[in-house]
């Protein structure tokens, strides 16, 4: 297999969510002398982007998105240490959690998978995450974005509590705040002072990328 053929096959197998093949091809690519960056940016990420696009068009369904994401995670486990060595800049770091009082995580996990698929480094704090834990994680990981997920109208007010906690800790300006979850709306996101709302996993990825670009442009300007 030529390097180009390998990248193409890896792309196709990721699209199908064939985890064993994706892992084997990633290793094979490294053995062939392809760089981790090339495997990631020329094959895996474009493949997951295509998964997101198909999902948005209604051509792909939740299980297909999940297995594609899992296949990619397997490859990432292999590539991440190598990428760290070469000091490649990740797309961005994303701290994610379901708010305090809420134990729902299916939607959040889908979003995490698509974010990882897009090349984000995702730190998942799990469910029932209190404001102080978000503050800690932001101080520890210095993420570009923090995401709050809520599934109940009674737990959505924790968005505001979390944002207040970030303000009190003096770190509100350091991160972009994104919110989401079944009952959440754009109006609600605006009302609590979040920076962005996304309705589903692929929208989250798009908005997250845009926000990071804007943020980086502002910093460099």
């Amino acid at each position: 297999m030529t390097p180009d053929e390998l990248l193409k096959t890896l792309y196709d197998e990721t699209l199908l969510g064939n985890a064993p093949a994706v892992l084997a091809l990633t290793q094979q690519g490294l053995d062939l002398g392809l760089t981790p960056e090339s495997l990631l940016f020329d094959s895996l990420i474009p493949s997951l982007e295509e998964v997101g696009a198909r999902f948005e068009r209604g051509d792909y369904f939740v299980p297909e998105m999940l297995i594609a994401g899992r296949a990619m995670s397997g490859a990432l486990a292999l590539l991440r240490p190598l990428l760290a060595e070469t000091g490649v800049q990740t797309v961005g770091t994303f701290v994610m959690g379901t708010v305090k009082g809420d134990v729902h995580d299916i939607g959040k996990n889908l979003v995490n998978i698509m974010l990882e698929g897009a090349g984000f480094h995702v730190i998942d704090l799990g469910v029932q995450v209190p404001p102080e834990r978000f503050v800690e994680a932001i101080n520890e990981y210095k993420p570009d974005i923090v995401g709050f997920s809520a599934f109940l109208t009674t737990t959505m007010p924790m968005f505001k509590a979390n944002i207040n906690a970030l303000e009190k800790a003096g770190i509100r300006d350091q991160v972009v705040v994104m919110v989401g979850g079944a009952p959440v709306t754009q109006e609600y996101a605006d009302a609590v002072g979040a920076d962005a709302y996304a309705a589903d996993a692929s929208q989250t990825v798009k908005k997250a990328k845009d926000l990071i670009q804007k943020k980086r442009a502002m910093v460099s300007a």
Partner: protein
Amino acid sequence: MHTVLSSATKKITIGHDQPFCLIGERINPTGRRIFQDQLRAGDLSAIERDVAAQVAGGATVLDVNMGVPLTDEPELLKKAIKLIQSLTDLPICIDSSVVEALEAGLSVYEGRALVNSITAEDDRMAEILPMVKHYGAAVVALPNDHDEIPMQADKRLVLTKKILDTAVDKYGLTLEDIVIDPLAMPIGADPTIVRTAYETMQRIRAEFGVNMTVGASNVSFGMPGRHTINATFLAMAITVGLTSAIMDTRTPQIVEAVKAADLLLGHDEWGASWISAHRAQQAAQKAAADALLQQALAP
């Protein structure tokens, strides 16, 4: 084990020897942008259409949820319940995660409502169960706790027992007052998740014999062909002890699957309901055909 719900003039009995109880899910603003905007503006007219469509579709109870962010949910829920009770005699399932909204809803409801819902969390039970007792209502209970939604049937059984014991021993309710929601989650997210729900149902039926309900449309989230999945999920669940569901009652395919399951399990003796539904459908088709013919023949 019979859980009786009522309005001022109608009684519905949920039980293992009864026809399945179809709780219409539609009056819920979650994911309905236009409906949310209307409710925020005080326009409840969509509820009238939702009631009519669900009654026509075969609902036996109507769920009502008024969880619109940034509104006065208790007030909105009161208004909605009064409106619905003026339109239909079907009992109501009062659905909110806000305790004050449940209380407000119960305070204006005529009859014995189903309250949706509590969990196995102590604070949630302490806030809601005395209210359920006070108003003589029944309540849906989810076997999840503060830490998680359990992915194993064992843990769900433990929490179900905790809920039943607490409700009976501490708050003076009876087992008939509790309807357990064994938790059905999207099959697209995990291939074993619905089997776990079925196992939970079977074991709750065997160990406690209580009535159960479930948010049935959840199961098909993120999948194509949702109606078929929902219909099949329900028919299968009924065989392992599910006695009601909060479900899509506007889609004939789903309602018919439930009715057929009733027939097959002997809950519709000699097919009386099944056959009369068939005749009603025939009559409606004939009336429609006649109307078309009249139109065609008109000068």
